[in-house]
């Protein structure tokens, strides 16, 4: 989902940066508030960030014959809410943009929007919906993490199609092209991310049941957190 450095026209690069900026501020505030209220959650926030570090470093082969990587932000979005993952995504993307020439500073806003804003929002939204419908926890976690991952790559495809409409077929043809590259490649990877997130949540529910009870999305059903 990394749009390479310089590969968005100036207006788009600026626009996405402006769109992402308020989320960074809100995200920092959300993290600070949660850690002030419950300093013991620091370890879990570390786990959520670490999970994203690991998964976004793993470039996995896919059925399309190309490689891509999961984002790992779904887990943190379920635990701490979607906003908390914005600063985490920012750290990951900055590390890769500055040291690895993977992604870039000019495309940071766009990449942040797809990976750390749309992905976590979709994941947290689906998780909440699934729980409200009374679906089992593992199913909700799986659907949230994998579809959140997929949403990130669809967003990247949309961003590129918007910036580079096909000269003949326009936006739609371009979207098909970029979607074919990103979204199809991502399907098995998104499933992997979903399964791995279930694995971590299994461990969390077994070993951190007490801490989970205080997290908004994991609060016992039908009771106030």
């Amino acid at each position: 989902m990394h749009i390479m450095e310089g590969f968005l026209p100036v207006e788009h690069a600026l626009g996405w940066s402006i769109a992402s900026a308020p989320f960074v501020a809100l995200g920092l505030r959300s993290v600070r508030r949660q850690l002030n209220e419950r300093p013991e959650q620091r370890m879990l926030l570390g786990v959520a960030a670490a999970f994203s570090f690991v998964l976004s470093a793993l470039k996995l082969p896919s059925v399309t014959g190309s490689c891509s990587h999961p984002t790992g932000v779904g887990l943190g979005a379920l635990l701490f809410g979607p906003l908390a993952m914005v600063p985490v995504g920012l750290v990951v993307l900055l590390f890769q943009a500055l040291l690895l020439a993977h992604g870039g500073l000019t495309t940071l806003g766009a990449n942040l929007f797809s990976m750390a804003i749309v992905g976590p929002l979709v994941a947290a939204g689906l998780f909440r919906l699934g729980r409200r419908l009374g679906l089992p926890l593992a199913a909700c976690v799986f659907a949230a993490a994998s579809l959140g991952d997929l949403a990130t790559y669809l967003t990247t495809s949309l961003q590129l199609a918007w910036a580079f409409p096909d000269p003949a077929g326009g936006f739609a043809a371009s979207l098909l092209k970029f979607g074919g590259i990103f979204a199809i490649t991502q399907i098995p990877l998104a499933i992997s991310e979903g399964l791995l997130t279930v694995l971590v949540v299994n461990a969390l529910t077994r070993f951190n049941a007490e801490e989970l009870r205080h997290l908004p999305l994991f609060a016992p059903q039908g009771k106030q957190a």
Partner: protein
Amino acid sequence: MKKQNWLLIIAVILLSALPLWFAPQPAPGPDGQPGEAFGGADGRAQQAIGQVAPGYEPWFTPLIEPASGEIASLLFALQAALGAGVIGYWLGCVVTRDRWRRKTEGQTKNEEKPRAD
């Protein structure tokens, strides 16, 4: 729960390994040489931009590029290692805490009910 966890791990390994055999062969490039198999999707998107907008020139280049593919893999490995280290630390802490809790609970139970032997 334990069985489910193993099944999850096996499924992830299969999902990641099977494409190595079942993915389509890359189309040959313009020079007739077979294309690079399992290149990055990000790179493919870059090529697609070249096709859709042939006149587009990137207007900014990365400040630092890894000196080689080896250095890039070093940094990716470092990123994964940092994350895995934190996750390992957490698992070590909570598993040990869980074990201690069980042990002390077991002891208090044993004190209430003296063992028959």
